[in-house]
């Protein structure tokens, strides 16, 4: 279990930019297109959920 969490931490550190190099177990740095997909997913999720700051959401009347 410890190894799982360690690897998860290494992966998250890499994905969020804390670490410049990919974890050893990943083999190599991710290619550009994977980063592109990852960034698009993050931006999409932000766009999807930032409506929660809206005071009042009722739409279809």
């Amino acid at each position, binding site marked *: 279990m410890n190894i799982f969490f360690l690897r998860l931490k290494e992966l998250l550190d890499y994905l969020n930019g804390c670490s*410049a190099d990919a974890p050893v177990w990943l083999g190599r*740095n991710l*290619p*550009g*297109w*994977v*980063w*592109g*997909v*990852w*960034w*698009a997913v993050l*931006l*999409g999720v932000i*766009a*999807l*959920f930032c*409506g*929660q700051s*809206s005071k*009042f*959401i*009722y*739409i*279809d*009347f």
Partner: protein
Amino acid sequence: MERRTFIQAAVVAVILLLGLDRAVGWMGRNAVPRVIVRQAHSSTAFTDAFLGNSIVRAGVSEAAWSRTAAVGKIPSRPVNLGLGWSTPAEHAVLWDELLKTGNHPRRIFYGFFDLQLQEYTNSVWWALGGNMAMGYFVDPELSAKYHAPGSRLGHAFMQAASHVPLFTERITFWGKVEELRRKLAAIGLKSAPSNPEAKDGATKDEFSAFMADSSDAFARHCENVVRENAPFHPAIDDIIESATRIGCKVYFVEIPMTPEHRRLFYARPAWTAYKAWLRGRLEVRHAALIEAGDWVTDPTEFHDSLHLDATGAARFTERLFRETARLDIGSVPSPP
């Protein structure tokens, strides 16, 4: 990250976001404002147009209107352009869409409650949300006149925004997220009463947020409006002006409110004084006021603290037809 990798990533992210933008545009193809605009464009023979926000959408029954007209053998074709969560700016745009199609309605009915005709929303041109976002994609030029008066940046922004559905239709997917959130929050709880007309399940409590904080605050607000001879929202002025120009009779209709609402707010002398003042202001503009606030007395004919239900809407609409037929034509169809 190498420069080459960064550029590759940025290009892929932009392409995917453009795809998401198009997908959101597709999702919003049947958004409520678009459906109502299509309705306005669906005929050139509308004789009676209804404008306003959700209280008009819920409170006016086209079927009841047509039925009452048929009883009196009075040719009439109504169109309810009521749009929830909207301001006079959106109403002016919808009215303009109706006229653009070649319609020349004989009468227009603008439904309101409380001091809506003199109120300005705190909407800003860079963040119009919900149904008000139609300002970006139906007629940005006209909407900018109301939402960004005198701002060239605002006009340019509203024009440009119309090409970005991810922005203009954001409430479409925010609403779905909100629905999901409420479903999750309601797990294991007794369900809150919700309004089926508001598809995301807006609750009764939320609608009451539209009302004045207190009876005294409402009365003071009424007194201020009268004392300051407060102007109409510019969009209201434009609707009256364009309607009278084509010979269309303009009615401002005080939409029926619940007995509780009337007891709290409309029983105050300040409201009576406001309506007398309003009547005078409208008559100068060749428009008329119809005081229908107490036409539906049964509290069970309201869906929530603001909106009539189907029965209440039919009752109100039938009476509205008869009363205005009396004023306009002199013939009064008997109640069915």
